[in-house]
């Protein structure tokens, strides 16, 4: 491969993956604290910023590392054994920053010119929203839901549904600064508890046009931001690749579950003294779960490789591949869920404890798979339809 997508970036992704793995012991120590806080501890946020994980796919001209799209997968996966919520937030925020690189250059400058460490949470769904087109921008208020990392973020990327006469509302992404939104404290969940995925409230703010971008524009090969950000990865179409966001955390957590299980079971004896590692049922469980995790990893690698080629050719995605990718991210979620469940159910009462790392990993995988991009039914049906020659209506 020519350009910067070759060896140099591989090494950089590997370097960040090493940094992520090095952080795992610290993150694991803070597991209880993170669960109790229901958001990341300040110390963890500081560690993330210090390591530069949020900046991996941020444009180089604004202090980012401009790694190829897909690098969030191994890096976030490497964080998962320490903390599922950290893995999730790193993958999600890094992906937002890649999206932000497609906005008008001025919007990017607003976020990063003064502070390259600034970062954005997001909320794409809303419970109630009031949006109106006004001169030079949008008048916005409302409550957006499930905004991971919203407690600390400097900006929020929200979705506006802009009313149009006689048509369904136009959907746009919009950047809102910290001063204009508040995070509620309503994230009380079983999975990804530490992600602080609270609702955010925006009260009567004005968002200038340039800080917004239409769904159609951000999905272009030559979106506005590509005028200033020339790296091939910014030419990937947003909705064709976005679902990859949950894949790193899912795979990393499933691997963490497997490692926690095998490390634990090697030492354990049954009530009547049998060494559990010598039981064939246990051997077959770890074998099947590890096969699922390896399959998940190779599927992810296939798609990441595909995206890097697609970025280099710069011609955009073909629809069949978009559908296949969408199906596969959800399938990876299924494989990882099954892998962890098969191990958790062999653990007995000790496995039910919140302080059991396998139990925690399973809960977090379920959290990851609850995301709209990871649900099996919604994400597999469009591909099934395409196989059966049925036209799929609406967004994919």
């Amino acid at each position, binding site marked *: 491969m020519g350009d910067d997508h070759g060896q140099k970036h591989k090494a950089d992704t590997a370097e960040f993956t090493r940094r992520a793995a090095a952080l795992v012991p610290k993150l694991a120590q803070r597991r209880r604290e993170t669960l109790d806080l229901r958001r990341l501890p300040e110390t963890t946020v500081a560690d993330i910023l210090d390591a530069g994980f949020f900046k991996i796919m941020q444009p180089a001209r604004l202090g980012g590392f401009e790694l190829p799209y897909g690098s969030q997968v191994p890096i976030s996966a490497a964080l998962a054994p320490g903390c599922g919520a950290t893995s999730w937030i790193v993958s999600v925020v890094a992906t937002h920053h890649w999206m932000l690189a497609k906005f008008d250059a001025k919007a990017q400058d607003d976020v990063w010119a003064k502070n390259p460490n600034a970062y954005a949470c997001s909320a794409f769904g809303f419970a109630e929203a009031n949006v109106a087109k006004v001169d030079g921008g949008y008048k916005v208020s409302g409550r957006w839901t499930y905004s991971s990392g919203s407690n600390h973020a400097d900006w929020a990327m929200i979705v506006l549904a802009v009313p149009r006469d006689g048509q369904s509302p136009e959907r746009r992404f919009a950047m809102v600064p910290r001063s204009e939104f508040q995070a509620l404290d309503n994230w009380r969940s079983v999975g990804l508890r530490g992600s602080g995925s609270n609702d955010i409230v925006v009260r009567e703010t004005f968002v200038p046009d340039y800080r917004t971008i239409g769904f159609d524009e951000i999905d272009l090969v030559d979106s506005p931001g590509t005028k200033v950000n020339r790296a091939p990865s910014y030419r990937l179409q947003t909705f064709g690749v976005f679902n990859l966001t949950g894949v790193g955390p899912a795979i990393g957590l499933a691997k963490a579950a497997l490692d926690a299980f095998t490390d634990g079971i090697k030492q354990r004896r049954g009530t009547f003294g049998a060494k559990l590692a010598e039981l064939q049922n246990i051997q077959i469980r770890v*074998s099947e779960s590890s096969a699922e995790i390896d399959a998940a990893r190779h599927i992810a690698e296939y798609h990441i490789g595909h995206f890097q080629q697609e970025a280099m050719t710069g011609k955009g995605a073909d629809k069949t591949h978009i559908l296949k990718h969408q*199906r596969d991210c959800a*399938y990876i979620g299924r*494989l990882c869920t099954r892998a962890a469940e098969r191990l958790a159910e062999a653990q007995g009462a000790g496995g039910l404890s919140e302080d059991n790392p396998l139990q925690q990993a399973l809960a977090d995988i379920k959290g990851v798979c609850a995301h709209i991009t990871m649900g099996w039914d919604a994400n*597999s049906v469009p591909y099934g339809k395409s196989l*059966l020659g049925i036209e799929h209506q609406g967004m994919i």
Partner: protein
Amino acid sequence: MSVSALQKDQNVTTQDLVARVAALAPKLVERRAKGIALRRLPDETVADLVATGALRACLPKRWGGYELPFGTHTDIAMELARHCGSSGWVAGIIGSHNWWLGKFNPATQEEVLSGRPDALVGAAFASKPGSKAVAKDGGYVVSGEWMWASGVDHCDWCALMTPSPQPSGPPDLLMIMWKRGEYRIKDVWNVPGMKATGSNNAVIDEAFVPASRVSRIADLNSKVSTGQKLNDSWVYRLPMLDVFAYSVAGPTLGCAKGALASFLAAMTSRTALDGAKVADFQSLQLRAAESSAELDAAQALYDADMSFLRAVAQANQDIAPHDILRIKRNCSYIANLSKRAALRLVEAMGAGGVDDANPVQTAFADTMAGAAHRALSWDINASAYGKSLLGTQTSPDDEVLKRQAAAAAALKK
């Protein structure tokens, strides 16, 4: 093919060979019922396969083969199996023999292959209790019965894995090459799937074989065997038994892919009793999506392992024991994914789905039968890998490996 034509043909790629066998698809589909009735491949199918040159994919160049990397023969087998499971199976099996012939006793290679690049070589690894080779006068006296030599009715030669009792300890395992006529074929292949593979038994009542027709399994299952002094390409630097499972996993996956293709072809146009288009049913969309996801997952594992094996062979390294077990686990897992994928489709087809004439049913039965190969046993391979992962001692299955290791050590002395 003449020798000069063969030389011109030397730049053939894996893609070329896959394309050549893909072009046979309509004929294979047409002959499916005939093969099932015969319980072996029709002669014309074997002739077609030979004519494509695809069976020589991994045969040494020295003998007129293409010497393409291990796995080319399974790519070919997978493609064939999408259209006819039994054709894919036999091509995978015979193709794998043509690969490991490059590792075999040099005298045997000469005798079997010199001037005969299209010689067909069958093999059987399982034998009935009591089958044995007893050393005598520069060779062995052999008797016994060997099970399930796929395609044996068409073969010019057949290699039989034979235990040779030792004064103490476990028997040494030998691979012995026999010429057609030196063994009897016993017609035993009455099965629900892979019917046309003609996987019949070979019987030797009592016969002498010279040592020039013998290779030790321990030798063949090493990175560099005695026979590789004839063929020093990296292509042959893999242990024969340790990588064998892929030769049957490839066609098994191909059968399940065939099931999906036939399912989609049937369901795209079918209407229910009330006139509804069944392709509109979300239940069917989910079935198609899940089965296709499983088959793509299986393909991703297959591709990753093939790249891994090629890299190891090119670097002239041994495969680490844990990785050998992982590869075997992956082959079994590929078989499991293939079975699940095919079952999910056939069970949505109603009574038509159990009809012998339904290609989905044939492909399903072939998938099940392919996955029944011992090399694809989930219980054996998953247990062995699980043990390795858990750090406990070797599995019962590894007794075989242990014996081979002991024999390999003895060989080095």
